[in-house]
């Protein structure tokens, strides 16, 4: 028999993968909405605490007014939605249940499969986020310093943050190829991310050395950077250098992932059927 004809294109593949991600998440829109509401608990606590601190300190803390903090944490919720990625704990499940075998038998890297599915899911999550953001805006009265440049740059930065975090978590997931019990390590990294990304609190409220350290790690570029771009706390030079940092992190970790995958796949034991 002759080899089957193929008309593969990456664009076509990503469109199909994103469509599946979209359909899957819209199928469970109520569950997605409940997840979204659960996400809100975290930033609302942070916001309430820091707004009180700002008021008690005469109206601002770490250069943030109460209204600026509201803008920070409302944007936080959208960035959090975009930051959702295939987490390393799921790798453990995927390998133990043999699901990875199914993906590996196909001529597409599981990374592209997952990445495209998550891209599709973002559309659903963002649509569900809009009414939530409207309610939060009415309650907390945020103050944005919007410009066309900020909005456009935010559009790039939020996807850049997603790409960096997705690749980072994927890279961590590779540990599962060496051991099927790698969860403990992930806990440490996730804790580091909480402190050094601007997720817990804007980094300008942390000691200066923490802020400096965060500049040299990937976490800040996935979280605080896109938020600050939108709320207008960065000048254009800082925006461009931040986008450059995202590109460097995504590219560097992408190369590490490519190399790590080649090593990991040799170690793969294909357990679970």
């Amino acid at each position, binding site marked *: *028999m002759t*080899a089957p004809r*193929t*008309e593969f294109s990456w664009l076509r593949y990503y469109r199909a993968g994103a469509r599946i991600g979209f359909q*899957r998440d819209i199928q469970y829109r109520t569950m997605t909405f409940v997840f979204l509401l659960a996400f809100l608990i975290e930033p609302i606590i942070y916001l309430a605490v820091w707004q009180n601190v700002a008021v008690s300190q005469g109206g601002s803390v770490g250069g943030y007014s109460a209204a600026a903090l509201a803008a920070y944490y409302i944007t936080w919720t959208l960035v959090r939605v975009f930051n959702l990625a295939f987490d390393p704990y799921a790798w453990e499940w995927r390998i133990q249940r043999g699901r990875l075998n199914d993906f*590996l038998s*196909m*001529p597409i890297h599981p990374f592209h499969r997952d990445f495209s599915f998550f891209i599709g899911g973002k559309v659903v999550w963002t649509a569900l986020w809009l009414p939530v953001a409207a309610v939060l805006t009415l309650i907390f009265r945020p103050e944005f310093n919007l410009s066309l440049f900020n909005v456009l740059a935010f559009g790039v930065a939020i996807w850049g943050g997603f790409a960096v975090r997705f690749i980072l978590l994927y890279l961590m997931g590779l540990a599962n190829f060496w051991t099927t019990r790698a969860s403990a390590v992930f806990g440490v990294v996730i804790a580091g991310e909480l402190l050094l990304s601007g997720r817990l609190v804007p980094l300008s409220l942390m000691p200066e050395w923490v802020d400096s350290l965060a500049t040299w790690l990937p976490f800040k570029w996935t979280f605080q950077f896109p938020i600050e771009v939108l709320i207008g706390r960065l000048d254009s030079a800082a925006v461009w250098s931040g986008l450059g940092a995202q590109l460097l992190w995504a590219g560097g970790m992408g190369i590490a992932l490519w190399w790590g995958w080649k090593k990991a796949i040799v170690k793969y*034991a294909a357990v679970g*059927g």
Partner: protein
Amino acid sequence: MANPIEVEGLTKTFKVPVRDTGMKESVRSLFRRDFKEVRAVEDITFQLTPGEIVGFLGPNGAGKTTTIKMLTGLLHPSTGDARVLGYQPWQRDRDLLRRISLVMGQRNNLAWDLPALDSFALNQAIYGIPDEDFRFRQAKYIETLDLGELVTKPVRNLSLGERMKMEIVGALLHGPEVLFLDEPTIGLDVTMQRRLRNFVLEYNRETGATVLLTSHYMADVVALARRVIVIDRGAILFDGPLTSLADRFSAHKKLTIEAADLPEDVSRWGRVLERTPFRVVLEVARESVSTVAAQMLSEATVTDLSIEEPPLEDVIDRVFTRASDDRAKN
């Protein structure tokens, strides 16, 4: 044309951590871990010719799935070599992966929450199937397997048999030249097993695809394969025509005779398996079958006589029993 599957001295060894039970051993394992090497596949060599369907048989843990995983690029071998369509499978060349398919029973490659049609569309993009081919094959397979009303239901709402049919359709849409079927009918009822077998057979006849099949259901093997490879503890015990398997491993055949005047004592002809007044089933030594049959015909008014090979399950069981006995002797 080169053989689509060539396997040469393939070996796979797993390093498995071991420790005794008890507190003391648990603590000791924190500081020193012991490993033992388990040979899942040991120096196997075989080839499949174009269009051939081969049954790959063996008990649980024999090394069948490990071999298939190496041939589909999921596992790297410890030593040895293999080529599938000319490629070393564990290099995971995209061109090879586009031309083969792996179906594992009771596994789900389709998006669980969506209708199978959506997964088929995804497969079209993954494999780059041209629109015309995709539409033609999808319509044809859906019709052949009578899936018309099911393809729009979410996969999670389908029965196991319906899901397996969808899995097979999804696995064949890109027109694979080599098909690896690992227990494709496991857990299915007899009717569903038969439909899937017929579908695979039809695909093989129409496309000339080569098929390597593992199954614990001998009906699958008998219906599909003319040749079988029997593997146990990682080593090949038999590779040849299915018909020769019984010749080599079973010393007996089954004779069934129906006659109005059956002699009282028929045990001189062989071991009596069943006896009614007018019918007897005997197990007869293979080399004595013709002699016994002639004697029966001369001594009784025979109305029906049949000579059968023993069931394949029994033959396979004998193969493994003999291998186990040989190991015990050594």
